[in-house]
C-alpha cells in the first residue's frame, strides 16, 4: 500500500478488501471472527491463508505450518482463482514478490500490497512503485455548493478540502528534487515542503512554511491562476492532472484560521524609519507586512472606506469571502500596521508631502480606470463598466438593496463583454441577482479566454452562455435612453499579435442584433490619473503606467517604489504581491544602508 495512504488510516483500521480481478470481497465475518481469506500456494500445495483484517496487525493463520522467513509461491483469489501477484513489483524491505488487493478506504478504492514472505511486515512501496501508484490517485475535487442552489446566493462556491481529501491530494505530490512548481510561483512558495507537511498531518507547520514567502495563502489559494503558474509546471501534470497546489494552499490557510492557530510573527526592533503605503490592495498589504516585520513603522493609506483594494471591491463574495480579507487585514493591524481609510493620496497628501514625514513610499494603487470600447451607445443607461458593477455589488453591497442604500443594476438579459476573470465575476454576479440569461461575449475563441479555468468551469455550470468570436459594435437604446439591444459582429482569428495571441478580425457582413437589457463592459483598465496629477515628476512608460526598476521596483523618484497593476497594467493578485515583496526587499536594503550611515558619525561624536 502507498506509504502516505497508510498514515491517513488509523492504526487497526478495519480494511474491506476486494479482488482486483473479480471484485469479490476477501473479508469473512462470522459471529466474532473477522478475517481476510486467501488461497496460497506453497511447495506446490494449495494452502488456506487467513489474515487479520486490521491495518498494522500481522496475525496470520495458515492451514499448514510454515516457518517464518519462508516465501509463498503464489497468492490466489478464493473465488476466481486468479493470481494476485504483481509481477513488476517487489517488497521494499526484502525483495520478495507481493500480492495486490484492493481496499476500500476514505470512500475510494486504493491498491494495497501484501508481502509473500511469511513474517515480513512491509506493505509500503519502493520509490518507483510509489510513483506508479501515485498516478493512479486522481486529482481530488473540492466539494462545492450545488450549482442550482448557488446561483441564488452569494456564499462561497467551493467548500474547500476536508482533511481527508487534502491528505489524499497531498499524497499525489512526487516531492521532486528540482521542483518546477516553485519556479512557476511569483513568490516562490516552498510547495513540495508544505505539501510534505500536510501529508505528515502537520498542517499548522505547513501553514508556517507557506507564510515564509506568502503571507496571504487563504487569498492566493482562492484567486491565483494556478493553472498558468505553479500547477502548469507540475510533473504530475504531464501524465495526469497536476497536484492541486492551490486547493491545498487554501486548505492549509483555512485550517490555520479556523483552528485559531494564526500568531503574530516576531517584529524586529524598531528601526525608527517610517513607510507610507498607498493603496491597501494585495501589493500594498504585502509591503506593509514585510516592512512591519522588519521593524519599520508602516502606515497604509486607502482611498475607499474599506480596505483590501481589488480583493474587496472587485472579487465577489462567492469567490473570496470578505471575512477572509478582513481577517488578514486585522492580522496586519495586530502586527502594528496603521491603516488610514478615506485618504486619496495625491489630493489629501501629495507624494512629496508624504516624503517629508516618511522615509520611503510604495505606490500600489492598481489600474483602476475602466476602459470603454468607444462604440456608439456606450453611455446609455444600464451599460456599466465592470468596475462600477462590481463596486456597487461588492463594496456597496447593492445586491442587498434596499437594505443597503446603493441601487442594484438589475437585468434579465445580461451581456458581459470580455473573457477575463472580471468578466466571469460580473456574469456570475448577474446570475445571482436574478438574470434569466447571462452571456459572455468575447472576441477571441475559447482557447484564448484569459480567465482562470475554474472560473470558466463554474460559470458554465451556473448556466452562463458563451458567445465567442463575437464583438459588440453598437448599443441600441430605448426612448428613455437605456440599452435594449446590441449589434454584434462575428470574428475570426488572424495572425498572432504582439501578445502572441491570434488577432481577432471581424467578418464583414456577419452583423446581427442581440436583445439585452444590461451590458457590463469588462475589457480591461487603464492607469488612474489621480497620483500623476499631483506628481508630474513620476516617470511613466509608454502605456502610461509608472516606470519602475524591475529589480527594486524603485521609480524615477528616489525612495518612491511602485508595484502591481499601476506598473504592469492589469495582472494578477499574486504578481502584485510578488512586486510588493521585491520592493520591500529593496526598500529595506536602502533604508538599512542609510541607517548605518547616519549611525556612524554619531559614534564618533560619543568618542570625543
Amino acid at each position, binding site marked *: 500500500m502507498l506509504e502516505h495512504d497508510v498514515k491517513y488510516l488509523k492504526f487497526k483500521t478495519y480494511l474491506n478488501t476486494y479482488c482486483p480481478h473479480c471484485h469479490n470481497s476477501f473479508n469473512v465475518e462470522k459471529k466474532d471472527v473477522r478475517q481476510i481469506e486467501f488461497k496460497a500456494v506453497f511447495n506446490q500445495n494449495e494452502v488456506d491463508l487467513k489474515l487479520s483484517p486490521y491495518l498494522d496487525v500481522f496475525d496470520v493463520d495458515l492451514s499448514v505450518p510454515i516457518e517464518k522467513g519462508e516465501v509463498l509461491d503464489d497468492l490466489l483469489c478464493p473465488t476466481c482463482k486468479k493470481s494476485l501477484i504483481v509481477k513488476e513489483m517487489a517488497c521494499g524491505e526484502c525483495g520478495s514478490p507481493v500480492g495486490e488487493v484492493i481496499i476500500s478506504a476514505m470512500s475510494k478504492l486504493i491498491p494495497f500490497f501484501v508481502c509473500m514472505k511469511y513474517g515480513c511486515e512491509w506493505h509500503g512501496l519502493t520509490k518507483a512503485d510509489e510513483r506508479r501508484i501515485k498516478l493512479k490517485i486522481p486529482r481530488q475535487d473540492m466539494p462545492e455548493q450545488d450549482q442550482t442552489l448557488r446561483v441564488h446566493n452569494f456564499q462561497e462556491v467551493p467548500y474547500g478540502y476536508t482533511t481527508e481529501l487534502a491528505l489524499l491530494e497531498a499524497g499525489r505530490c512526487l516531492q521532486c528534487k528540482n521542483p518546477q512548481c516553485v519556479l512557476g510561483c511569483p513568490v516562490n512558495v516552498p510547495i513540495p515542503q508544505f505539501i510534505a507537511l500536510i501529508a505528515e498531518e502537520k498542517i499548522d507547520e505547513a501553514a508556517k512554511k507557506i507564510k515564509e514567502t506568502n503571507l496571504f495563502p487563504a487569498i492566493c489559494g482562492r484567486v491565483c491562476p494556478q493553472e498558468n503558474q505553479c500547477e502548469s509546471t507540475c510533473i504530475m501534470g504531464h501524465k495526469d492532472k497536476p497536484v492541486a497546489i492551490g486547493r491545498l494552499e487554501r486548505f492549509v490557510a483555512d485550517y490555520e484560521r479556523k483552528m485559531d492557530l494564526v500568531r503574530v510573527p516576531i517584529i524586529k526592533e524598531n528601526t525608527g524609519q517610517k513607510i507610507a503605503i498607498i493603496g491597501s490592495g494585495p501589493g500594498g498589504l504585502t509591503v506593509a507586512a514585510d516592512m512591519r516585520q522588519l521593524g519599520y513603522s508602516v502606515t497604509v493609506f486607502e482611498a475607499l472606506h474599506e480596505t483590501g483594494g481589488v480583493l474587496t471591491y472587485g472579487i465577489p463574495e462567492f469567490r473570496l469571502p470578505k471575512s477572509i480579507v478582513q481577517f488578514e487585514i486585522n492580522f496586519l493591524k495586530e502586527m502594528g500596521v496603521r491603516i488610514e481609510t478615506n485618504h486619496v493620496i495625491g489630493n489629501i497628501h501629495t507624494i512629496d508631502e508624504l516624503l517629508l514625514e516618511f522615509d520611503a513610499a510604495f505606490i500600489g494603487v492598481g489600474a483602476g480606470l475602466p476602459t470603454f470600447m468607444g462604440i456608439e451607445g456606450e453611455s446609455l443607461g444600464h451599460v456599466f463598466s465592470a468596475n462600477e458593477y462590481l463596486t456597487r455589488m461588492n463594496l456597496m453591497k447593492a445586491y442587498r438593496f434596499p*437594505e443597503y442604500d446603493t441601487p442594484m443594476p438589475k437585468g434579465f438579459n445580461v451581456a458581459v463583454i470580455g473573457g477575463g476573470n472580471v468578466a466571469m465575476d460580473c456574469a456570475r454576479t448577474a446570475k445571482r441577482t436574478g438574470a434569466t440569461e447571462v452571456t459572455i461575449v468575447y472576441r477571441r475563441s475559447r482557447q484564448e479566454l484569459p480567465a482562470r479555468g475554474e472560473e470558466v468551469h463554474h460559470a458554465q455550470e451556473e448556466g452562463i452562455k458563451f458567445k465567442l468570436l463575437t464583438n459588440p459594435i453598437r448599443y441600441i437604446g430605448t426612448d428613455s435612453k437605456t440599452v435594449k439591444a446590441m449589434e454584434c459582429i462575428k470574428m475570426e482569428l488572424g495572425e498572432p499579435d504582439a501578445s502572441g495571441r491570434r488577432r481577432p478580425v471581424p467578418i464583414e457582413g456577419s452583423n446581427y442584433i442581440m436583445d439585452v437589457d444590461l451590458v457590463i463592459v469588462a475589457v480591461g483598465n487603464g492607469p488612474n490619473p489621480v497620483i500623476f496629477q499631483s506628481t508630474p515628476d513620476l516617470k511613466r512608460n509608454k502605456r502610461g503606467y509608472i516606470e519602475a526598476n524591475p529589480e527594486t521596483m524603485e521609480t524615477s523618484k528616489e525612495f518612491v517604489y511602485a508595484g502591481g497593476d499601476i506598473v504592469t497594467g492589469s495582472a494578477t493578485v499574486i504578481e502584485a504581491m510578488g512586486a510588493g515583496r521585491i520592493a520591500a526587499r529593496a526598500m529595506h536594503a536602502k533604508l538599512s544602508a542609510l541607517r548605518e550611515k547616519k549611525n556612524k558619525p554619531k559614534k564618533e561624536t560619543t568618542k570625543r
Partner: protein
Amino acid sequence: MFQIVRKQEMARGTIIRFDISAPKIAKKVKAGQFVIIRVNETGERIPLTVADKDEFAGIISIIFQVVGKTTALMRSLKEGDLLRDVVGPLGRPAEVEKVGTVIMIGGGTGVAILHHVAKAFKQAGNYVIGIMGSKDKELLILENEMTQICDELVITTDDGSYGERGFVTQPLQKYLEERDDVKLVYAIGPIIMMKNVCKLTEKYKIQTMVSLNPVMIDGTGMCGGCRVKVNDETRFCCVDGPDFDGHKVDFEELMNRNSLYLKEEKDSLLFSIR
C-alpha cells in the same frame, strides 16, 4: 468618523448646511472640489461639493438639497452626530486666475458651490458679477454671502416673488449685450440651467465653465459611472472634472444618465420610511 459641528436649515428645511470637522480636508480643499460622504454602514456614497472651508478651525461646509433617502437621513442628523465616512478633497479645483470681469451664475442649490468659487475669483482680483436664481423667495440661499462677494448681484425668481421675475439667462443676456469686457462665465446649478446659459454664451463666444454632478460611486476614477461626454470624448467627472468647458459638454446625455435611478431612489426612500 466625522462630527457635524453645526447644522443650519435653509429654504423651508429643503436645503441643509452642515459644518463638518475634517481638519485634513479643510487644509487642502480648494474651490470647486468635492467630498464623498457615507452616512452609516449601509449607506451609499454621495458626492457633495464643498461650499466653504475654515482651514484654521478644521471645518468644511456642505450644502445639500433633500432629494432622496440619504439626504433625508442626513437632514435627521443633529449637531454633534457623526458621519461614517468623508473622503476628499476629490476632483480638480476650479482654475481661478485674474481674467478681468467674470459672471458667476448660480441656480438653486448650485449657489452653495458657486459662492465658494466666486469668493476665490474675487480674491484673485476679478470684477465679479453675480446672478442667482431660484423658484421663489423662500428657496433662495446664501444671499448675504453673495452680496458680500460680488461687485454686482442680480437675483431672479421664477415666480417673481423676489428680485427680477424669470430665469438667470435674462440678466445674463443683458450683461452680455451691455458689457464687452466679460471674459468668463461660471454656471453652476440644474443641468437645464447650465445648458441654457451655455447656449447663450456660445453666441457671444465667451468661455463658460460648468460644474457637473453625475452619478458617482468611488469618486477616484475607478467606477466610470460619472462618465460624461466632453468634446465627444468620454471623460470622468471625478478625476477630469467636475468643472468642464460648458460649450463642449453633452448635456442631453448627462440628463439621461442622471435620471437612471429615479425609481430606485424612490424605492429606497419608501423602504426607509417603512
